[in-house]
């Protein structure tokens, strides 16, 4: 059920984000979504990419530091209260969210929220038992390519 996420270390200075994007484009690799967390000094770029193995390979070849982490993608209705429902479940289980970000597809009325949990397996179980749709990678990229 878990999705592979690519994370990269970048210095917080002009032009740093464009470089990995250019490398991926040159290798015809498509980014489904991304999020950037930054501090005063550095940033961590997180990417969701279907062919993450190839992306990792080309980025590492260019000298970037790339880590693969497992995240959880859930589908919520793109309307008020959608996220709140999920957070309530997580809170009740006493689980920790390290970070999260969201995106929507071109079509449809659903949004996808990507979570990084400290205990992803417990989180998946809890969410599914409450009827939340947790996407595996096949489902995720199918929807993306629709």
């Amino acid at each position: 059920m878990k999705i592979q996420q690519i994370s990269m270390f970048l210095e917080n200075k002009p032009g740093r984000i464009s470089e990995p994007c250019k490398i991926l484009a040159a290798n015809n690799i498509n980014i489904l979504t991304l999020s950037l967390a930054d501090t005063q000094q550095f940033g961590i770029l997180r990417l969701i990419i279907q062919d993450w193995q190839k992306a990792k390979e080309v980025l590492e070849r260019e000298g970037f530091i790339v880590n693969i982490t497992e995240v959880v993608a859930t589908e919520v209705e793109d309307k008020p209260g959608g996220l709140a429902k999920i957070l309530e479940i997580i809170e009740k289980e006493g689980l920790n969210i390290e970070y999260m970000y969201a995106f929507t597809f071109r079509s449809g009325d659903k949004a996808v929220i990507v979570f990084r949990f400290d205990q992803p397996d417990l989180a998946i179980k809890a969410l599914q038992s409450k009827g939340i749709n947790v996407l595996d990678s096949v489902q995720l990229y199918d929807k993306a390519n629709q």
Partner: protein
Amino acid sequence: MNSLPFENRIWDPAETIKPEERQIIQLELLKKVVERVYNTVPFYKTSFDNLKVKPEDINSLDDLRKLPFTVKENLRQNYPLGLVAVPKDGLARIHGSSGTTGKPVLVAYTHKDLETWANLCARFLVAGGLRKEHFVQISFGYGLFTGGFGLHYGVEKVGATIIPAASGNTARQILLIQDLKPDVLICTPSYALNIAEQAKQTGIEPKDLSLKYGHFGGEMWTEDMRKEIEEQLGIKAFNNYGLSEVIGPGVSGECYLQNGMHIQEDHFILECLNPSTLEPVKEGEYGELVFTSLTKEAFPIIRYRTRDLAYIDDSPCPCGRTTKRMSRVKGRSDDMLIIRGVNVFPSQIEEAILQVSGIAPHYLIEVTRPGVLDEIFVKVEIQPGYISDKMSEMQSLRDRVLRKINEITGLHVNVELLPPNTLERSTGKACRVIDHRKIS
């Protein structure tokens, strides 16, 4: 544990004279100091005149009660040297403590005062077992703060070896203890526990360190904390008391029996008063400590209200010292906080945040002691126009608050930025401080 250092030794014969004899000396010295301040310090002349009391009205120790009180505010109003009773070129040293506003409260010493001070510190250091051959690590801050210097000169007087480690950098403190093998540790009690804890975290058993005993002060602590320190570090832990307005550390200190701090009555008269009525409490009852200095040249002080709450024990001590003893301080009669040995007033935090643009004038101070070291959290609200989606900007706003507070109080605090209007607004007196520490 080596029991040898704790044999009973007396540094100064003045500690064991008959109380009646000491009272005669006290009265003589009191008359002198009252006359001197009346004639040399305009502040005291005015405050005596306001109460229509003259130096010649002091004919017994009880007459002390005719004299006006001195409070911290008076020291601030007379900043920098308005209360000094000697010509400026007679001053050897300036020290200070934090005031409630930007100006510190400063005190001054002549060479003779420094001599007196060193001797008083030597008294309680020896009472706790200090010998010439001991190594002493002083992990108090040096500087304007009196803690480091008071003890430093006391140890020097006894002739033991000083390792002037000063405060901070705990990992380095532990390295020094391991390598230089001091017998004695001098710092705040919470810092002693912090050293023990951090040693453990790095795989060092604190009991196996060379330390035999420690003299701790500068903040309030409890009997439980003493047990904790003694167990964790495998040492004897002694309490001492002092404040820079009176002289610094050395006003009182424990002997090896650890049952109350011997007050250096030949240099200070201590009263214990009900903070509301300002009448003396019964012996053994808690009250506010009020000190009058008898021998200080540069900065004599009359009936100084310390705001510290403790009680006095007049029963004889088996160690042979004939002075009265005071209990540990169990609280304050004002809102001052003591964080890691540093005095902090909520008004200082307020002053700091008012100087940072983007921060609303509301705050909450939470003090905790998660492990052994005090932690202070200051929660402040961001003003609506200053919220940024850039984490880096928010971090630098937080850092500005942090630095300002550090500049004013000298403390490293944790600052938490809150969205506008999240702190509770009370209609009456705002509750600015939540102290989660268990001290008394």
